[in-house]
């Protein structure tokens, strides 16, 4: 199909094929499920950022909340991490995917009620999972930390929304596929496989010995560096052309990115220090190094497509989010390669470096791209824009500054820690005390992030309330139009 340039951006001037429905009609069909998914996204990222903030205070005051088990660092931190991954990222990726499948396929959403039910299951699943973690039922594997009893609910939710996505894709009237659809389709299939693998081999029927740790690394890598990359980059390849009004620079660069991610990214994630057979770490390292091609392709494609960047208009803010996400993607990708190289990984392994990289990837890249997409999609769902632009701008700046403030100090702390760890004469307490002032800045960053997500949640909820009210007013005036007509003009 045509690249999503400026022509098809507004509802009035569309270049749709004759058989497809009106764009407005397609958007309206997405309204209920997407509102549910996006409100869930905003709610869980707010919860996650508040939990992360409270967890990080533990570093500065060892006696903080020490009398309650469920508010300990080792429970708040995974609760925050899992609600970010499954509450925010998974839901946002599904919501954006639904909308893009409908929009790019020039069709209405198939089985919207199924997707709405799926959104309900997802939110209930995440709530059960986060509650379980706080209750002490975490599995202990980062990214698969939700207790086993939350997983079926979450998986049912995913499958219901996924079925709606697949049916929408199947019923498309525009048969030429745009780059974004490759990414989304692969991701749609990717998640259930890795999730069931993680649950079966780690939680329900745990593998024996260190194989568990290898599978946990494989899962975390496939979720954060394949699933989130596929959905995030899929959105980037759609929204940058859409928001700038330019054509996608090169379909072949997108194709290259797609194949490299598919073939190589899923082999990363096994660290050289793990007590596993050495070939695994070596293979992982080689596969991670190939990601340099992905970074170059994405960077070049985004740079060439985004020129010239529009300075005014309603698309500026969503574009800012997406471009911030692309820069964060490049940064996180470089950090991943640095962290996998044989000599450098001795300094970066097992330090704050890994945590900083993950935060930059998940929050800086994926969540920011998703916010940009949500700010673009939400006004179109309702048919009118009730989002407060000031709130949205505050959300962007607080998130952007917060992420930089949270990630950079943690990155420096990781490098400092890694260098000092090489000197065995330096006591460990001295090393960890040496990183504390950097972590204080990081906590400040988390504070800004939490504040920004608060603005996001309030803005989105108010938008939904206002759009409902407007809907009600419009419906009321249409229905009662006849009643209030002067008696004389009755026809």
């Amino acid at each position, binding site marked *: 199909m045509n690249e999503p340039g400026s022509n098809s951006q507004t509802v009035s001037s569309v270049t749709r094929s004759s058989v497809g429905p009106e764009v407005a009609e397609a958007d309206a069909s997405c309204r209920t499920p997407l509102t549910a998914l996006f409100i869930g996204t905003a709610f869980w990222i707010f919860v996650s950022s508040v939990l992360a903030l409270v967890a990080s205070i533990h*570093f500065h005051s*060892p*006696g903080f909340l*020490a*009398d309650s*088990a469920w508010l*300990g*660092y*080792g*429970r708040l*931190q995974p609760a925050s991490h899992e609600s970010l991954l499954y509450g925010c990222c998974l839901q946002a990726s599904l919501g954006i995917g639904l909308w893009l499948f409908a929009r790019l396929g020039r069709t209405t959403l198939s089985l919207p009620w199924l997707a709405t039910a799926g959104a309900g299951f997802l939110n209930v699943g995440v709530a059960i999972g986060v509650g379980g973690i706080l209750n*002490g039922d*975490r*599995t*202990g*594997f980062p990214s698969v930390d939700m207790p086993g009893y939350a997983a079926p609910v979450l998986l049912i939710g995913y499958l219901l929304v996924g079925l709606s996505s697949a049916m929408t*894709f199947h019923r498309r009237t525009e048969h*030429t*596929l745009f780059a974004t659809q490759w990414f989304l*389709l*692969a991701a749609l*299939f*990717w998640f259930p496989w*890795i999730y069931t693998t993680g649950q079966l*081999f*780690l939680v329900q029927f745990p*593998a*024996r*010995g*260190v*194989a*568990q*740790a*290898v*599978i946990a*690394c*494989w899962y975390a890598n496939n979720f954060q560096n394949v699933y989130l990359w596929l959905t995030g980059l899929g959105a980037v390849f759609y929204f940058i052309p859409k928001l700038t009004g330019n054509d996608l620079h090169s379909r072949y660069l997108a194709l290259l990115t797609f*194949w490299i991610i*598919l073939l190589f990214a*899923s*082999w990363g994630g096994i660290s050289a*220090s*793990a*007590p*596993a*057979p050495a070939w*695994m770490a070596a*293979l992982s390292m080689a596969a991670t190094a190939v990601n340099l091609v992905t970074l170059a392709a994405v960077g070049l494609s985004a740079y060439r497509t985004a020129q010239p960047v529009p300075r005014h208009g309603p698309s500026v803010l969503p574009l800012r989010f997406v471009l911030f996400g692309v820069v964060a993607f490049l940064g996180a990708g470089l950090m991943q390669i640095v962290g996998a190289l044989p000599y450098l990984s*001795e300094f970066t*392994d*097992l*330090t704050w470096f*890994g*945590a900083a990289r993950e935060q930059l990837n998940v929050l800086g890249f994926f969540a920011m791209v998703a916010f940009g997409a949500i700010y673009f999609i939400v006004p179109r769902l309702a048919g009118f824009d009730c989002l407060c632009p000031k709130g949205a701008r505050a959300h962007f700046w607080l998130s952007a500054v917060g992420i930089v403030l949270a990630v950079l100090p943690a990155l420096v702390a990781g490098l400092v820690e890694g260098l000092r*760890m*090489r*000197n065995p004469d330096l006591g*460990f*307490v001295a090393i960890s*005390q040496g990183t504390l002032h950097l972590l204080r800045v990081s906590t400040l960053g988390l504070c800004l992030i939490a504040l920004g997500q608060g603005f996001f949640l309030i803005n989105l909820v108010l938008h939904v309330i206002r759009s409902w009210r407007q809907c009600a007013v419009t419906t009321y005036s249409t229905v009662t139009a006849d009643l209030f007509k002067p008696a004389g003009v009755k026809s």
Partner: protein
Amino acid sequence: MNYGPLIFLAAFFALAGSWFGFVITPQVQMGRQQPTNTLGSPVTYPVSRPGLARQGLQVYRANGCADCHSQQVRQSGTLLVVALTDRGTNQAAVVAALQKLKPGLSGSDAARMLQDLPKPILSSTKRQEADAAVKSLSTAGAKAALSIVPQGPDLERGWGKRRTVAGDFLYDNPVLLGSQRVGPDLANVGVRLPDMNWELCHLYWPRTEVKDSPMPACRFLFEKRPIGSAHSPDALVFPPGTDPAPGCEIVPLPEAQALAAYLVSLRADAPLFEAPLAPIPAAAVSTNTPAASGITTNAPTANTPKPS
């Protein structure tokens, strides 16, 4: 790239490849790993942890200890140390062999090296070189011991004697290797700090045992109660001058007991085929086979809580 099925198949085969590589292969390669004897000794390693320590692993998991503590000791290499343990009867031949091993060594210096045995005379990273040295010394009638000393910053820090291997976790479920070191590595904490009371005091208020420790306190694992007519036999004994709750006694809950038992059971220091380890002989032991002394395992005997 205009066909949905094509993209589906691409994703299917790509994911199937990495699934077989990193999910199925590790289970085939490591899933049937069995306990084995330690190097040069019939002691079986690893043995299952005692029941209380197994419960402690679940407390460790639930409270996220692995978020800040790794259990993976890294090793950058291995140093082979040849130590002369017995000078034999033919001193001239031994001196000649020493001079051959260390070119530029004067005869009197070499003769002086034969005093105060055992004494390390050669360090090498190459197995052939070390074996040749042992052989030339034994040909001269002396006896030499070959020691295997793992190297690396973690080991110099005292966090272990050798690197962590897959066999160390054979009986653990879940296997919590940790991914970050906000606190020290715990793979061998039971060797470093075998005292249950120390572990419990440290859990209650870390700064009583480690000055300026940034570790969050785990007071929720303990009960604080006024000292009544009878002192609880389980109450913690804090180091003098650090009692965080004067007038009260701090009694560990069963979870705290279990967690401390688990920590004390963390001893991954047995010499294994895949991670050899042989200390430099300290006493006058005369043998030219790799010494296998100092074998400690996580056997139950080491984990019995000390009555406090």
